[in-house]
């Protein structure tokens, strides 16, 4: 096995996912399957290969900057329109710090 249930539980916590016991069992099998395939990458010697973190560098550095012109941003009401709970111009969340 490439990954144990214990580790799947830890990753679920990192990912903020509350998985059920059944989901943990299934997830462990599925992740093991794909991680086993991914192991194939270790056959390749990549010692002197530069990682490809960008696809294309076709532009001059400054070509990615727009002109510094003022423009109307998305308004507060539009930005909040899809919030499940909002009030007084803010997103509202459950109490974080107890009094």
């Amino acid at each position, binding site marked *: 096995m490439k990954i144990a249930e214990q580790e799947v539980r830890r*990753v679920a916590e990192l990912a903020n996912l509350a*998985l059920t016991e059944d989901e943990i069992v299934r997830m462990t099998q599925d992740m093991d399957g*794909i991680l086993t395939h991914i192991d194939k990458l270790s056959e390749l010697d990549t010692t002197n290969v530069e990682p*490809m973190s960008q696809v294309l560098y076709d532009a001059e550095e400054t070509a990615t900057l727009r002109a510094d012109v003022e423009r109307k941003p998305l308004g507060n009401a539009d930005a909040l329109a899809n919030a499940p709970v909002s009030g007084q111009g803010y997103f509202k969340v459950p*109490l*974080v710090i107890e009094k």
Partner: protein
Amino acid sequence: MTIDSIRTELLEKKRSAEEIAREALEFAEAENPKTNAYLTFAPERALAAARAVDQKIAAGEDPGPLAGVPIAIKDVILTRGLRTTCASRMLETYIPPYDATAVIRIEQAGGVIIGKTNCDEFAMGSSNENSAFGPVRNPVALDRVPGGSSGGSAAVIAQGTAVLSLGSDTGGSIRQPASFCGVTGVTPTYGRVSRYGLTAFASSLDHIGPFSRTVRDSARLLQVMAGRDEMDSTSAVAPVPDYVAALDGNIRGMKIGIPKEFFDGLASDTGDVIQAAIQTLQKLGCEIREIRLPHTSYAVGCYYIICTAEASSNLARYDGVRYTRRSAAAGSLQEMYRKTRDEGFGAECKRRIMLGTYVLSAGYYDAYYLKAQKVRALVARDYAQAFEQVDAIVGPVSPHPAFKLGEKVDDPTSMYLSDIYTVTGDLAGIPCMSVPGGKTPDGLPVGLQVLANHFNETTMFRVADAFERA
């Protein structure tokens, strides 16, 4: 209908854009129960756009290159005021506050957006079975999948319920459904079309691209969308050539590479169609050369590390604070995050978030993510070397034709492995497309994949167009 036939009808006053839009909407709504390809229709928006086209024509103005053409948009691309769900419970009621740049450009060109298409949830899947709103059925064979993730966008073209559609492609999500449904689908060069307003899945791999009946219509739609957009810093500044002007049907003397690695593990019914297509290209005067893309067998592993890592980061924003859904069961903040995500995401999204979080987690970054970025460089180098010898590359899109609904849902690894011939193009960032190549003895469509070098869409379109005419 094609872009040209609609233009002729409009300019000869045979039908108005409004009549065309009304008929298109009526037909699409009546046909939709067969395939479930549309999630949302947009009658008000469509009719307003159509009337604007009619007014321009009445005033003697140019109504634009897409005048009056009914167009469907994949439901991961934002449309202001029109529900955009990403086929997820998470965004079931989400109403975007702005339009994607591609959408703005289509409407400025006179295009008429009639609805939003079904897809795999957050564009994750190869069968369209991961939609929270039910799978799409393949119009060619209703017991089969249309492919994914842009299954709805391919199906509406095959079904004739839209003339053009937009999809998104991260690892094959335009080409594979185009192949399965027997239509044309194009993944342009990375950065050729702005992704502003495309819901992010894997940002170093995501593309927007067209679907159509003909190569020419895809070229025209790409023409409208392509080009620098200051709202997307990754959009390319390279000038956009006139794609359609180059489509003269003559590809005599063109050097076409056939990658040996694209024929390993290929189903025989698919292989026969591809071999016949290669012979057609030879008859058209192309010089066929066998080439090697030696890192192909590593591409799926490389792809699923990079795309899941990026997806786990991009999907972190769906936390119950900003995007419509919040679990009713939530007590504390932490509990709200977890329960909202658990209730909102489907199984495939969770699988990818988990895998991505794992490969990025402390102690694994070098072994997985960094390693995958290096292997990605090798895959891209394979193509760079190939394009020193050939003008274009052709091969299959998928190892097999459309499979039956439910046939592969229990084996995610096998589903991932079937992306083998499409992920390499995305990893390298080159333009690639699927054009109908023929049919299997069972009558299932098989797409021919055509790939070209960065920003060389023109060569890709010329090969596909000449093949289509032959």
